[in-house]
């Protein structure tokens, strides 16, 4: 089980936000981000309100702001795009520090930056305060199809196994003196993919057979169907 090593973004703490039901957190995140996205870029005061709401949530969660900011680098490519926007967008030209830029482009860049940053910080806050298991449970309570939640559960459970496998292959390649510099090395890397796919697929088959052997009928016992395990039942191995 990948249950105990959590995931890279989770920040362990005890706060009202950590213990809040995950489906409520997901709904709140989607609703709030939709609100932020729908806010016109020229309502500067509204973004101040959004930022205060987010800051309050971060304060309640006891997750350090630096922890979130460090991980906000995922949006860097779009920051670059936003910075270029005033120069490539059309519309009337205005002078900023002696450089003629597009007025609407500048406003759009501001909108893109502020909405993107608020959104990424809020998403990071959800990831930092919610364990993957709770997230899956939340999705289930939100009536996401059972099968989809199951696929997601398997993916999260085996994510570290598969990425570790890829890592081991990299170590094996490099310990044999391999360095990838240009497309001439692609055939080797592509064979890594091939091997990784075959191993993942075969692992999936083994997992499925192991589950069948343990009485898998097509659905995973969830919080609702799982009865509390008594010591007696646990010792005698009859959990279901």
């Amino acid at each position, binding site marked *: 089980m990948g249950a105990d090593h959590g995931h*890279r973004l989770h920040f362990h703490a005890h706060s009202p936000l950590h213990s809040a039901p995950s489906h409520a957190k*997901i709904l709140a995140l989607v609703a709030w*981000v939709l609100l932020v*996205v*729908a806010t016109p*870029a020229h309502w500067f005061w509204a973004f101040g309100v959004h930022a205060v709401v987010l800051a309050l949530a971060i304060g309640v969660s006891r997750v350090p702001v630096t922890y979130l900011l460090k991980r906000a680098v*995922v949006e860097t490519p779009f920051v670059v795009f936003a910075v270029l*926007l005033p120069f490539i*967008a*059309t*519309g009337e030209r205005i002078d900023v520090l002696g450089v003629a830029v597009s007025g*609407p*482009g500048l406003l*759009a*860049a501001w*909108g*893109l930056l*502020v*909405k*993107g940053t608020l*959104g*990424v910080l*809020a*998403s990071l806050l*959800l*990831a930092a305060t919610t364990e993957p298991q709770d*997230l899956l449970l939340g999705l289930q309570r939100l009536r996401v*199809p059972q*099968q*989809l939640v*199951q*696929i*997601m*559960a*398997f*993916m*999260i*459970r*085996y994510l570290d196994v*598969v990425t570790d496998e*890829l890592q081991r292959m990299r170590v094996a390649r490099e310990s044999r003196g391999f360095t*990838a*510099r*240009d*497309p001439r090395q*692609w055939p080797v*890397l*592509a*064979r890594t*993919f*091939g091997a990784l*796919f*075959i191993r*993942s*697929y075969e*692992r*999936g088959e083994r*997992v*499925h057979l192991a589950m069948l052997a343990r009485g898998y009928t097509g659905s*995973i016992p969830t919080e609702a169907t799982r009865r509390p395990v008594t010591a007696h039942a646990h010792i005698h191995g009859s959990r279901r």
Partner: protein
Amino acid sequence: MHVPNGFLDAPTSVATGVVAAGAIGLALRGARRELDDRTAPMAGLVAAFVFATQMLNFPVGAGTSGHLLGGAIAAVLVGPWTAILCTSVVFVVQALLFADGGITALGTNIDLMGLSTVLVGWCVFRGLQAVMPKRTSLVPVQAGLGAFVSVPVAALLFTALYAVGGTADIPLDKLAAAMVGVHLLIGIGEGIITALAVGSIIAVRPDLVYGARRILRARELEIRPAATSGASS
């Protein structure tokens, strides 16, 4: 490159979300035919594989590198429905657990990088398979061409979505030209790597490649007489 929050306006984001939800609903039904009761564990592990493929960087030269989108290769390897499920799950997990790609842009990301690359890749692959001779050695070539076409089509689709719900006025013809131009190059890489990877799998386990199964079934059983008897290995 995942689309973040606020890149497209709210109505477009909601509309792409509805399209994505519908496609996933259809795919849930279709995947049962491709994988029967093995759907959950198999699709889960293939999703983990797709996630991992996006972590392996391919050097392009001059210090830059890129990674696969993986939609087309997933379609050829496990079938289009399962591939849609797997890529969608990857984007959901990336948005919720890794904050990669906006949560309101989730539908957009699934439609562009999952749904469209899978469908385009698969249709091109199947189309080529119908007109080309039925040989397993051609499957990697067809898969590579499918992957190559899928990337610029996704870029074009992004431009179309931007035209409908973009938040900044950029001359659309310039945006389309730039997007398609850059993604033609990315597509060449995607195509070559997909072809090489599918080729390496076909060499070892051709039965695992969903797109090659029809050809394998058409093969006739041949009994080869043992060349040497009792020879030591």
